[in-house]
């Protein structure tokens, strides 16, 4: 079973189980993978139909399934690119402020997402801009895939899409701007209309396609930027705080979209995104770089930190409860907390690695402690923020 068939099956399952929105997004990804304008047209027709028959979910699901089935015979080849971006001991210095970033090394493959976290002023944006060839660097190397490496600097930049935290204002309707971007990148005629509508659909902008910049919320502005960037068919997507100003649901949706679209079979791309939303990023990122004073700490999906982290394994909990620190420590004394602190909002509790969150929670429940929030951050880069 090839990857495309797997994606189709997953789509079908989502639809059968009633996850219509998720199923629909997966279906659109599959259609985009086919690069077949007939299927694009079918999706657009379906969306138009759904717009006119919003309440007829049964028929809508049926049509989605039919469309999914129609893709079965499509052949989509996936050429895996071993490494998209290889950075080796990259150092960027700011002699005036005596601040430097790096040495940073990373190996980004197509379809991978890397998270970039760290406190403000630790060099996240500078690192992203350096990788996007916006800023020069002082030492180290940046190697792109062979396909990109042979391009001149201008052509290379067309494939390195950097989206800043504050996206610039645009004028005119959302759709016309997307069409303009698509035509600037060689998508002309009917294909221009279809591909633009496909990305409008994919990023949930259908209802806003005729809206102007001032009529969109921050979340939809970010979605527009993403749609415009995807129309450029980039190889490397560098996002600076894309989740800022977004609500939790919107954050999850955008991250899911990025994850799925990054793994596109027709145009897989590597994504590096910086964010303060650690837990959301960790959910989708294959690897996370924590920047502290410009120095990186790497963490993989399992929370395994790299060798530079000279700390012994421990269980770290973040807790919000209506209780004083003294009472809390007394209750948890059986678990022998090694360290406890209260930053005014939440308690940060350190235990030995043998202590598990479930046991500690059970103790708190037994003592009828009213918990409003508890999270195990032992494997999260969140722990790196609190280590001094």
């Amino acid at each position, binding site marked *: 079973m090839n990857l495309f068939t797997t994606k189709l099956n997953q789509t079908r399952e989502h639809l059968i189980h009633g996850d219509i929105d998720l199923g629909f997004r997966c279906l659109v990804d599959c259609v985009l993978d086919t690069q077949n304008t007939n299927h694009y047209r079918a999706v657009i027709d379906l969306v138009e139909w759904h717009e006119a028959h919003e309440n007829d979910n049964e028929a809508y699901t049926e049509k989605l399934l039919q469309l999914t089935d129609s893709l079965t015979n499509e052949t989509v080849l996936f050429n895996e690119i071993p490494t998209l971006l290889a950075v080796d001991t990259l150092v960027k210095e700011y002699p005036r402020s005596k601040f430097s970033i790096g040495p940073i090394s990373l190996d980004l493959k197509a379809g991978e997402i890397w998270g970039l976290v760290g406190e403000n002023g630790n060099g996240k944006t500078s690192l992203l801009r*350096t990788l996007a*060839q*916006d*800023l*020069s*660097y*002082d030492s180290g190397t940046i190697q792109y895939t062979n396909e990109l490496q042979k391009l*001149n*600097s*201008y*052509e*290379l*930049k*067309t494939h390195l*899409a950097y989206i800043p935290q504050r996206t*610039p204002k*645009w*004028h*005119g309707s959302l759709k*016309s*701007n997307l*069409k*303009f*971007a698509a*035509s*600037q*990148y*060689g998508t*002309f*005629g*009917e294909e*221009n*209309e279809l591909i633009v509508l496909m990305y409008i659909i994919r990023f949930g902008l259908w209802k806003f396609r005729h809206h102007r910049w001032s009529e969109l919320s921050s979340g939809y502005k970010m979605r527009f930027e993403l749609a*415009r960037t995807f129309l*450029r068919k980039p190889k490397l997507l560098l996002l600076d705080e894309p989740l800022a100003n977004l609500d939790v649901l919107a954050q999850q949706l955008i991250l899911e979209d990025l994850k799925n679209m990054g793994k596109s079979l027709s145009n897989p791309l590597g994504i590096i995104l910086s964010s303060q939303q650690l837990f959301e990023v960790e959910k989708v990122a294959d690897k996370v770089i924590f920047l502290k004073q410009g120095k990186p700490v790497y963490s993989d999906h399992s929370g395994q930190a790299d060798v530079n982290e000279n700390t012994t394994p421990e269980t770290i909990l973040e807790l919000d409860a209506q209780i004083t620190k003294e009472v809390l420590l007394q209750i948890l004394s059986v678990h022998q907390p090694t360290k406890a602190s209260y930053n005014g909002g939440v308690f940060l509790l350190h235990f030995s690695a043998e202590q598990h969150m479930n046991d500690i929670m059970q103790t708190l429940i037994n003592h009828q402690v009213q918990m409003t929030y508890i999270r195990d951050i032992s494997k999260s880069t969140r722990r790196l923020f609190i280590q001094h």
Partner: protein
Amino acid sequence: MKKIKQLDRFLLERFPLIWHTKIVYVLFFSVITSLFFYIWGVTYTTNYLINNFSVSRFIEHSNAMLFLVILWLIGIIVWSLSFFRKSAIRHFYPLQRFYLTRLFGLFVIIFWSFSWPLFSFQWGVNHKVRELAPQEELKAMISTINLSQVLLGMESPSYRSYLNMAHPEVQIISYDKNSESWSNSIKIIDSSMMETGGKLSSPFLTDYHPGENLRYTDTVNRQLIQFVTYKNIVEGNPCNRHNYDYVTGWKKYADLVPYKPFDLRLCKNQLIQPNKLDKQPISIFNSYYFSFYGYRHSYRYYDYSEVHPSREFNREVVDLFNSENTYDKGKQVLDRYARFLSKHEVRHSLNTDSIWSYVLNHADRFIVKNPVSGSSEDPDFISSIQNNYNGITEYEKFRASQDQNYYHTPMYFVANTEVSELYENAAEVYAYSYSWPLIMSSLFGAVALAFIFLLLSIGNIIHMLIAVPIGGALVILNVFFFFFAVYRRTEYGVDINFRVFSQMLVFAFILYSLFFIFYRSKKVGKAVLNITMYLCFVAAPIIPFVAAIFFDLLLTEKATRCYETYRIHTSLFYVICDPLWILLIGTGFIVLFTAFIKPILSKPE
């Protein structure tokens, strides 16, 4: 509206650059504006304006130029807002090939289209002039107009002007009773020739004293006159020439003026030259050639517009006066003339019967005071004269009795300047084909604006503002070096022009070298690189001309003629003096430079 949306979508999907620059709408706007200006030109043009102002100035008189400038400003602002709000090059890196070159080309077309109303207004004016003043009618009237000048006795005829025209070899030397002296206009004369029949027999030359040759004196109009014929000789070598006039003989007044005194009026010039409207429209190439190559061969193309006496014309007048029914023929001519003046709204006041009778009855008068003024007079004043006097005879009698030093306006007038202006304008309109200088000027303006807007499209406005004083400082530095070169030129003995242009080339070389070094260097900030790029970009269209002049100076030959050194330029010099080549070369180098822009834009900071 639906069609416009379809067009907009078509352009957006297929020609993003054309869609972005809105060139289709700009051209449409320009066409509409041109049409409006054409109609303006047609409706604005009247007989009065044709008779009083040059058609080429109508655009200023009508305030159309002012309106157009305001329209340009509004158009450029609106277009700029529309263009810069969607700058692709600022937001992402457009992949289209020759993107900047094509953008520049579209800018040139857009800005050039803004000048179209200038042409269309003129076409409108020309159309109306053709309608109001048909060429055939004007041509047919030339003879009538010129004859009428004679028949109406306009302007005082003078034997002096006659002699100037009919006998240019005769010098008139008159005796002034008041100052008791001769107006000796021949300065050098060989007195030894006097007795030898005016033949040059000796190189010894002295002043001619008419008082010593009173036997050659004649009396004309109660004034002593000598009519001396003279000849000019040139002596010496080509570098040291001397001109001498020497007397070749004397003439009698009766020999020089063959007709009766009244016929002196026949010496009048023609107000309108018979071939005035015979100029053919010239091709765009010739128009260009005359306009810009003319200065190199001005003697070939100079348009001699001064009026020459026409013997044929004078013969025509003589025939009329010698015919049996002079009165009827003359009356017909004058009536036709009066109708022409009325039709074309030329200001005049004529009673052809009365004037013509008076002129004929006073044909024996030697020098008449002109009974009809050729200038535009105050109509109310003319009316008051006509009311106060019982006909022209009585009024002319009054005029003759008055002190000669005071001018008394004639009883009638024709605004001759208006007739002349009418023909001037008609000649200009019927020979109008293309105004090459206007085309070239508008193209220069369009290229200059396109260049500025290309800079604004790619540039960082702050960096550009910084580049301005830096560029100014470089210019001042160049001027400083220039003065230094002037000051030291005698020491080095080097041609000052050579120094100046070689210095400018060295500056350009340094500037471009820095540009290259900054581009290659990792240490140089993007701002410095950008500023250098702007300076180099601005210098790009100038450098070829500096280089051309430099090489011309290098290759040019110096020659000496009559102790004066002059330069024999190379063809290069003439090429860069030619506006068309200036435009093409300048534009070419701008386009060439656009190749450097993309690498600079994409260079990391």
